[in-house]
């Protein structure tokens, strides 16, 4: 498996070795406690705090971070990242120079980060700068991608089914022709009167044929009615025009901004919430130019909204009926479910569309199948019987369904 991937990647044997080494280090570091310095931990922090203004290759709001560890000392970087204003105040020439170079844009202070956190970030930058972690990052996005691809593959059976159906029909047609020919041959041989082959119209006028066609029609009509009725009020694929042509592809895809940077309340509250304009302005104070004149015009709309203190009236895409209670924090924070699981590959969408049907069957299916954070969340420690069952091997894992996740009042109250 791995070999195949490597083959496809056409990696030289030397690189293979180094990749294995890197992977080994990566894995080893994975096993180490999270609190310690690791590129993996750094990646997490980097995505949460840095990506909105920095890229490894190329400038965004702030400078490109490639090889920053070669340009500055670790000590300086820690000071700068944790509280750059203080560093500047202390008269550090480099600090002031960077600040001035980037149009005196204030970088927020991150006093919440420990020294180890910053070291982790640096470790991650080192990894990225040397190109080693590219694959790691790459697989990350690919993971989300394959998720979507799998679902795609799931619906791929349909054309195959049609082909089979046509083949079967053809075979049965030919078989019936052969049978009738054979019958006529045997009739001729036995000197029985040979039944003339019926014309197409005659076949159609047969009672049996009419009955079969009627039955098929009723089945099709019934099926369509039920399916359409089920889809009433559902809007999978709904992708309305938004007041600002905001591209998730650029923000979440290219720029790798963490979903939770903008949709911060998804971890805390029932609503994931659309970011307020001041969140947009955190970056767009500096990024005033788009990639095209149209893009620049769109960005200008945010600035205008910010300056006039008028909220932007976005069109809500994901709507649940009033009798459904859905809580983002439950799924994102407690359930640790990827946003993409329900929202699809948003990072590839220029214009966001509703990816899932949001039907009750869809919810329930997931509740039946999805494993909860049974071992890692202390909340579940009181479910002693289930813990025993897991231990004894009676059940493999605990799904939401086993915890009453398919009961009415989990979502309807």
């Amino acid at each position, binding site marked *: 498996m791995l070999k195949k991937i490597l083959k496809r990647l056409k990696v030289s044997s030397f690189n293979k070795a180094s990749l294995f080494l890197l992977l080994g280090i990566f894995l080893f570091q994975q096993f180490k406690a999270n609190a310690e310095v690791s590129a993996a931990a750094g990646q997490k922090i980097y995505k949460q705090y840095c990506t909105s203004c920095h890229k490894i290759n190329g400038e965004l709001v702030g400078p490109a971070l490639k090889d920053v560890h070669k340009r500055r000392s670790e000590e300086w970087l820690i000071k700068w990242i944790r509280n750059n204003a203080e560093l500047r105040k202390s008269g550090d020439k480099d600090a002031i120079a960077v600040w001035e170079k980037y149009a005196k844009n204030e970088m927020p202070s991150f006093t919440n980060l420990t020294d180890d956190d910053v070291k982790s970030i640096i470790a991650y930058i080192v990894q990225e700068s040397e190109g080693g972690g590219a694959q790691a990052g790459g697989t990350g996005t690919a993971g989300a991608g394959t998720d979507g691809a799998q679902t795609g593959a799931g619906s791929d059976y349909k054309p195959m089914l049609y082909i089979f159906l046509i083949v079967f029909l053809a075979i049965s047609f030919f078989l019936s022709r052969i049978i009738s020919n054979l019958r006529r041959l045997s009739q001729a041989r036995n000197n029985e009167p040979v039944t003339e082959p019926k014309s197409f119209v005659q076949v159609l006028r047969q009672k049996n044929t009419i009955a079969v066609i009627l039955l098929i029609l009723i089945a099709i009509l019934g099926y369509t009615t039920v399916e359409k009725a089920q889809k009433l009020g559902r809007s999978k694929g709904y992708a309305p025009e938004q007041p600002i042509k905001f591209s998730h592809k650029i923000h979440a895809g290219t720029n790798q901004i963490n979903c939770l940077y903008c949709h911060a309340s998804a971890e805390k509250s029932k609503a994931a919430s659309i970011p307020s304009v001041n969140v947009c302005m955190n970056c767009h104070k500096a990024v005033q130019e788009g990639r095209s004149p149209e893009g620049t015009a769109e960005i200008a709309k945010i600035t205008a909204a910010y300056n006039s203190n008028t909220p932007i009236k976005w069109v809500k895409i994901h709507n649940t009926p009033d009798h459904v209670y859905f809580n983002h924090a439950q799924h994102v924070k*407690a359930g640790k479910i990827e946003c993409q699981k329900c929202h699809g590959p948003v990072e590839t969408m220029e214009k966001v569309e509703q990816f899932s049907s949001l039907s009750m069957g869809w919810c329930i299916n997931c509740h039946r199948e999805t494993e909860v954070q049974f071992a890692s969340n202390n909340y579940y420690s009181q479910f002693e019987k289930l813990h025993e069952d897991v231990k004894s091997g009676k059940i493999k894992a605990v799904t939401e369904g086993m915890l009453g996740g398919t009961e009415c009042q989990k979502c309807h109250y």
Partner: protein
Amino acid sequence: MDTNKYWKGLDELHEEASFVELRDKEFADEIPVEEIIAETLTKKSAGRRDFLKLMGFSVTAATVAASCRIPVKKAIPYAIKPEEIVPGLANYYASTYVNGTDYCSVLVKVRDGRPIKIEGNNNSTITKGGTSARVQASVLSLYDNRRHRQPSKGGAVVEWAQIDSEITEKLKAIKAANGQIRILSNTIISPSTLQVINNFVTEYPTTKHVTYEPISYSAIADANEKSFGKRAIPGYNFDKANVIAAFACDFLGTWISPVEYTKQYITNRKVSKEKSSMSRHYHVESRLSLTGSNADIRIPLKPSDVRRSLVSLYNKIASATGGTPAGSVTIPASAEASIGAMANDLLAAKGSSLVVCGINDINCQTLANAINNLLGNYGNTIDLNNHSTVGQANDKAVNDLISELNSGAISAVILYHSNPVYSTPKGKALADAIKKAQLSVAISDRADETASLAQYSCPDHHYLESWNDAEPKSGSYSLTQPTISPLFNTRQGQDSLLKWSGSSTGFDIVVQNYWSSNLFSKQSKFTTFDEFWENSVRYGVFNTTPATSSFTFNGDAASAASAVSAVKSSENELVLFESIAIGNGNHANNPWLQELPDPITKATWDNFVSVPVQYAIDNGIEDGDLVTIKAAGSEITIPAIRQPGQAKGTFAIALGYGRAAAGPAGNGVGQNAYPFVGFDGSNFSLDSIAATLSAADGKHVVARTQTHHSIEGRPVIRETALYEYKKNPASANEDKIKEKEYTEASLYPEHEYSPLKWYMNIDLNSCIGCGACAVACTAENNVPVVGKNEVARAHEMHWMRIDRYYSFVNPNSGLLEDRVTKEKEYDNQFSSAFVKDYENVNVAFQPMLCQHCENAPCENVCPVAATNHSTEGINQMAYNRCIGTRYCANNCPYKVRRFNWLDYTTSDSFPNNTATETQRVGMLDNITRMVLNPDVTVRSRGVMEKCSFCVQRIQDVKLQAKKENRTVAGDEVKTACQTSCPADAIVFGNIKDSNSSVHKLKADERTYHVLSELDTAPSVGYMVKVRNIEEKKSNA
């Protein structure tokens, strides 16, 4: 085993035809299905066409509904989001509810900028986290559509700037001409507001500030001035009292500070094996009040005799303690004996007893002071240092003001939250008098009876939009902070006064300055004022120790006693009282409160004259008969209601009804009884008013809920006496052991539960029946208002109701052995005369809600499994699955399921199909709908609903635990009814957690389950009520 005969109303007791008809039918109105079918079938020719028409309609309707495009919804985030707000998460802000004399420290739940629920503030040393029905409902009054929307002059809308300049100009002219200015306000307990008024008085020295309350406590203040030289209402400590004697004093319902007193009272009423003592509560009154219904020994007397009984008590106490008894008085012999027992108990509990009197008469209050003084209660159960500040109203000054206005001696009058045209006996005269003033300004929340007469209307904020402070008791301070931007173009009243007195400071700054200069120095915890202020705003309260001084009684008990003895008796006397829900009338436009059944009569949306049952029998009066009451030169025609427990010779009418300009919910509801209020020269008098009753033509339906959902005489209440409880903690609950047998005999398979199983325990001994829980439930769970006509049809929607049961007491002993039981009645052990003693009844309250049965009868009969059982023991109700067969309601033995007969919430797909009554009272306005809890589904027509054990709160706590990587604590989830309860009667939690309170309480000997013999295995336990009555002496 307790086999008391309990009855909810006289119609049930007497098995009147109307009751039997209702009882035998599950639903009050049947759908005339058969008639319709029969009609269609007889018209055979039209049958097919009708069928086709109906089918055509349904197909078209379905097509129209199906082809509707999904509406485009907008999601509008903040432009600049305030840091503390997370969309979808509620914030709680400490604040203070003040409405006249009502005070409560509260937490306001704000969701996405809208206050949606009020909770009690546990940091308050006064209300201690308790609330009342009015406090709970106050959030709805914020969204009252009939509040003023902008300032106006003579009815025409004007700008604030214009109003300010005109009023200031006129005030200055009046000042120059030395004209008299009056500010007529309701009770103001805010020190900063008083400062603002003082500033105004300094600016305009001819101003006098007159405080007015329709139902005032001025006699207590006056009596204390005479007795102790301090015009104030003392602080009462009901928790320290082992014997309480109350004279016409509804201290749990309406008197002075009911939430505070309930909290205190109940601490000494709870019994357990560890603490098997409780206070003994004597109650002397004419009508059956909420407090009287909770008393151990209740002595019904007509109003003038209540006054005289005070003298009788004084004489007994005085002769026992070496005081000087006054001349003797005559009261009925049985009452005399009970007063004797009361005196003995009081004397035995010297220093830990309490005598309170609710009569607004200076002599009665002086006598009460004298008795408390003789009993040594001052400094123990009564605290004159830590006094209540609500006693500012001065009845005499108000009365004088009316005459002054009439004579034209007043040039300007500022009406500050007072509505004397409606609520004084001379209202009509006052209405004309106000017009005589050169300048009349109303600072009010709506164009009420008085404000609509003023030249200028300066609308005030709602308290949830305001900054304010309060000092309900000396030394105890609390803050009000705004929790929403003003909905309308209103301005805080204090700001108006500040503007007119030439100050440019905003009132919020005035409050801060007051706290900075007066309170900051009284503490040492915080070094900077900012810290102190932030902390005070955060917790809502700040306490200091008031200065102490000693008081000696200087009252003239003898002359007071002779004045009280001389009170004129009449054959029938009228008593006026404050309604529990709508108060003195200022909550009249609050539909939640209008729909809250009165704790005793269970009447909604109305007032009436209650008459003693025997009087009604003698005079042939039935419930709802219109009668004319004549008293004090006025008369009103009003329906009569027979009231058990009401003393002979008493009529009682609730005040606060008959509003003309309150708003659609309050206008024309009931009759205004304020014209009957008397004035004795110094105080308004609400009792002992000579009255006559004469029959009038016609009937008036009073919508009462008392016999809806009849429990059909099953033994659902259990009660015992304290002395029996001491002997046997399982007394009256000997059946408890049988519950296990019932379960073992069950045919049902046992449910498998998760480690969380919810259980509620309700202590019947603590429940005082006030109804705060019912309103809290309404607010939390979007329970609709249905209006009077629907209530009359037994269509009320309350998930939590309080059942009130009467039982007979033997008037000669009041003892448990002599109670009227079903058995004894069947055995004919009583003479008929005894059974008919309607004056002496015991009352028991029982909050009734979905019992979340383990073997729920409703679950089995639902054809679509819309109601089913969860692994956490909740009887779930999926509204979107319900098709409205109502089989579940039919099969529920507790009668707690509610059906949406009409669209009460505009959640129906078809517009303009809503319940007209609900629409009329304004519950469907978009502004009013802002009060809805976004976490709870708004139910549409045709579905069943019921108590959900506040599942949204359960889920919230569970999520919080998951987020914090921990388990849920046993007592962590608190339901809305539980947090609202001022008596801490309701406890909720996880029964599977052995550390939870409910786990212990369920095992308590007193805990029983209603109708446990049906083996429904409810998840709601009730604890036996304990009455502290005397054990019957042998052959006494």
